[in-house]
């Protein structure tokens, strides 16, 4: 058992060092089968925004800060889109309890986001999302270039700031 823990520890450290370098180059999204807001099959490989950045936000109906974040962005979203062309994809990790209530909830809150349903957490696991809200930014080529977890009032400013930097080709915040 001790040996096993040692192997794991070495691998963890090795991989995290390795990933430092990896992160700079960005990485592609894994190909995972999900559902769109209507419950139709959708694969994450289909995610695109005509060469413009994408914000990927993991949320759920039971997550208060997630809903606060998406409401706050919703108030600014038209301006964000006009300025940068960015698209927000809100990935719900709700299970069968709420799957069919996600679209009515998003519509009822007047959100203009594209909604995806990650009904059994496959995408969440593949993206290493421990806690929600967890937000990723993808550059125009679909590489994950920035990510952040948790939300507090005003946190959305950092997101749009980084989207602007991607468009301007500038260095992003170190998270």
């Amino acid at each position, binding site marked *: *058992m001790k040996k*096993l823990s040692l*192997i*794991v520890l070495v*691998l*963890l450290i090795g*991989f*995290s060092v*390795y*990933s430092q370098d990896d*992160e700079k180059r960005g*990485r*592609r999204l*894994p190909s995972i*089968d999900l559902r769109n807001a*209507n*419950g*139709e*099959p959708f694969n994450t490989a289909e995610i695109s925004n005509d060469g413009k950045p994408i914000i990927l936000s993991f949320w759920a*109906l*039971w997550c*208060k800060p997630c809903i606060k974040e998406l409401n706050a962005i919703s*108030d600014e979203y038209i301006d964000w889109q006009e300025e940068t062309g960015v698209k927000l994809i809100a990935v719900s990790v*709700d*299970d*069968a*309890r*709420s799957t*069919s*209530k996600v*679209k*009515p*909830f*998003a*519509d*009822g*809150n*007047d959100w203009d986001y594209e909604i995806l349903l990650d009904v*059994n*957490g496959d995408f969440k*696991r*593949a*993206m*290493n*999302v*421990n806690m929600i809200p*967890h937000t990723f930014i993808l550059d125009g080529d679909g590489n994950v270039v920035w*990510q*952040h*977890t*948790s*939300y*507090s*009032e*005003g*946190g959305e*400013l*950092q997101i749009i700031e980084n989207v602007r930097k991607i468009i301007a080709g500038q260095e992003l915040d*170190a*998270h």
Partner: protein
Amino acid sequence: MKNLIPVLITGLTLIFSGAQAQNFVNNGKVTGSFQFDGQYYMEDDKLGITDSTLDGKLFRMNGFGNIIYTNGNFRAGFRYEAYLPPIAGYNAKYEGHGIPYYFAEYQFKNIQITVGNFYEQFGNGLVLRSYEEWTLGYDNSIRGARVKIQPYKGIALKGLIGTQRYYWEPYANGNRGIVKGIDAEFYLNDMFNGMADAKTKIILGGSFVSNYEKVKDKTLVRDTVIYKYVLPSNVAAYAGRLQLIYGGFQFNGEYAYKINNPSAMNNYIYKNGESLLATLSYSRKGLGISLSGKRIDNMSYKSRSSELGEALDINYLPPLTNPQFYSLATIYPYATQPNGEIGIQAKVNYTIPKRSKLGGKYGTRIELNYSNIFNIDKQPVAEGIPVDSTGTLGYKSDFFAIGQPKYFESFDVLLNKKFNSKFKMILSYVYQAYNIDVIEGHTGEPMVYANIAIADLTYKFTPTKSLRMEVQHLFTEQDRGDWAMALLEFNIAPKWFFTVFDEYNYGNPDKDMQLHYYSAAMAFVQGTSRIALSYGRQREGLLCVGGVCRAVPAANGVTLTISSSF
């Protein structure tokens, strides 16, 4: 033996990397995450916590590390977990550490093969769902093999076989069942060219699951007579589902059936089980309505018939209640009753438009929810035989009849308003009727009727500095009486959080238990890394995520959480 497979995977990965080092480095990506939850417990006279109730285990921790390697169509990964010992409220069987989860997956065109552990859900999960929820200490992953095939556009087939995780206990012949399942889904509009542009979209699906368990026959003594019961080794369940989409309307329905499955959960009755879940919804921008109905009849389905705890569930029965996130509204959470329940839920979300008289500059968001859940109708199978008697068919039940008692009822309303760039407000009222006797097993205690009022105010000093205040009050004549709660949170987005709060059970009929459950916490976030430290008293209760609950004991102490992903 149990360590052999991870070692093999590591070995193979190393060999693979040696042979194709160039590919491994250039094309492969490694991602991962980890979390550490540590708690240091203190004695608390008022809560009755002493060194001996803590079993001398003053410091406890849960932790995991998750690594995924991806290279083109190949993915592999593992999760290391440690519970040394598990923090209060987690099952003591978790004590220990190791690698409970590892997998390798390959996608070849339209075929995907997974070996090792996997999570899967058929339809709504009524006959099969394996998943994990770290916060709850829940993990029923299946270890075995799974194949997914898309033989033709619009058709998705899945097949799997394996055994489920039971804490750290390795699978051995007969100590739990072997689960097999197939699922097929047909998206008609994709399958038939003629339907591609149809306004109505139709998705049909069906699943079949079987559990094989080597069970010994059971003997029971009743009225000095010894009865021998023959338990089935194979228990099958199947389900069919239909989804219709028409403009803003959606219908999602699933019916599941399970053949007789006498188990510790249903007191060893031989009745077949069934379940129906249906939701009809309509939405357009600014308005969303959903209506759901559910009936569950003897649908506990575990891969070990003698298991009474929360482990080894093959299926998932979602509760039809609104998820609550304000703390006093979580004191009485509903948990699905697998042996029988019938209920409805109605939910409306509406946004009063921007720049209207009522909506104001930013619009006003409103949410309404109503849920009502009862026992199913249960009549004796024959005169003189009580309902749910072991070895009988249990009971007769009229499908549409509502039984007694009531299990849960709630009505929630929530108003969410932004006044200007500095000030936001959420007001909420929640009514709950909670059958504490059935849901928490407090035998003989009366139904709890609670009314909860909540105000959540946020004021921004600068675009990133804000103060949030929550005030909540719970009124009830039953159980532990009235509660008041206040919270202050100062945030410097996106990095710093400082919170103090107090829940005060001033209405507790037991004067000695009129306690303050105070807490202070701070958190620092850098990208995906979060460090949170808190100190305070933790109220006894149920912690629920996504409808599954875990009992959390009262505690007093310091909690440290470190979480990161890359």
